[in-house]
């Protein structure tokens, strides 16, 4: 059942992104940025956690989940150390994904050749 919800919720979140691209001509960078900020807002108002509990990776793998991670991180850090947590919590929670992207990005550049990206 986990997997069915992951597929359906993850797929549905991607369809929303596709509709944005088709109907508003937003560039990919804008869609990704919008998704992360929207994830922070949805998480802040308490709407995203139930979705993660239901769909697992279906909600945490799309970039909305990245925003959720930032918001949760900041909340935990404010709980444990007060206002300074507003600075440290977000990136601390998201550090694994950001570091992995940068590390694998530079390694890929080291072994890969420039090519036509299409």
């Amino acid at each position, binding site marked *: 059942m986990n997997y069915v919800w992951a597929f359906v919720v993850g797929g549905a979140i*991607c369809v929303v992104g596709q509709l944005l691209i088709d109907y508003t001509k937003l560039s990919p960078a804008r869609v990704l940025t919008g998704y992360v900020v929207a994830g922070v807002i949805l998480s802040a108002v308490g709407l995203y956690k139930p979705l993660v509990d239901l769909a697992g990776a279906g909600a945490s793998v799309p970039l909305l989940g990245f925003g959720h991670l930032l918001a949760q991180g900041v909340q935990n850090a404010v709980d444990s150390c007060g206002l300074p947590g507003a600075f440290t919590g*977000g990136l601390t929670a998201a550090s694994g994904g950001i570091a992995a992207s940068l590390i694998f990005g530079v390694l890929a550049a080291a072994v890969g050749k420039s090519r036509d990206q299409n």
Partner: protein
Amino acid sequence: MKLDPRRYDEMIGRASPPSPVVRDCAWAFCVGGAICTLGEGLRQLFLIWYDKTLAGTLTSIALIFLAALCTLPGWYQKLAAKAGAGTLVPITGFANSVVSPAIEFKAEGWITGVGAKIFGIAGPVIAYGTLASFVWGVLYWLLGKVG
């Protein structure tokens, strides 16, 4: 045969393939759903050894690694041409947006090429995501003071 415009529209509707938007969305749904299902599989695997938070982080790292591998020979870009947001919106799309320019701009050097261009899309995502989380952090702190 004479046809009024309305009946002609109906006939065209039956005969023509589904609109590009419907086709795009079907691709996005299936590919995006599949990537998330793969993520759920990885998460369940990591949950055997680690707690929820760490399992989530490791799932992201594993998907990012796979996306980097698929970006190297250009497979991810080929899939993205069909799947659109299905490959863009998951964390693998974020990884692709980091890895792809890193490889592409290697010719411009390691600092101003790879090092700078790597943030072309990741930069705004991280900047505005961090700013939004900071704003929420301050609000959350204030709510705690009041409540």
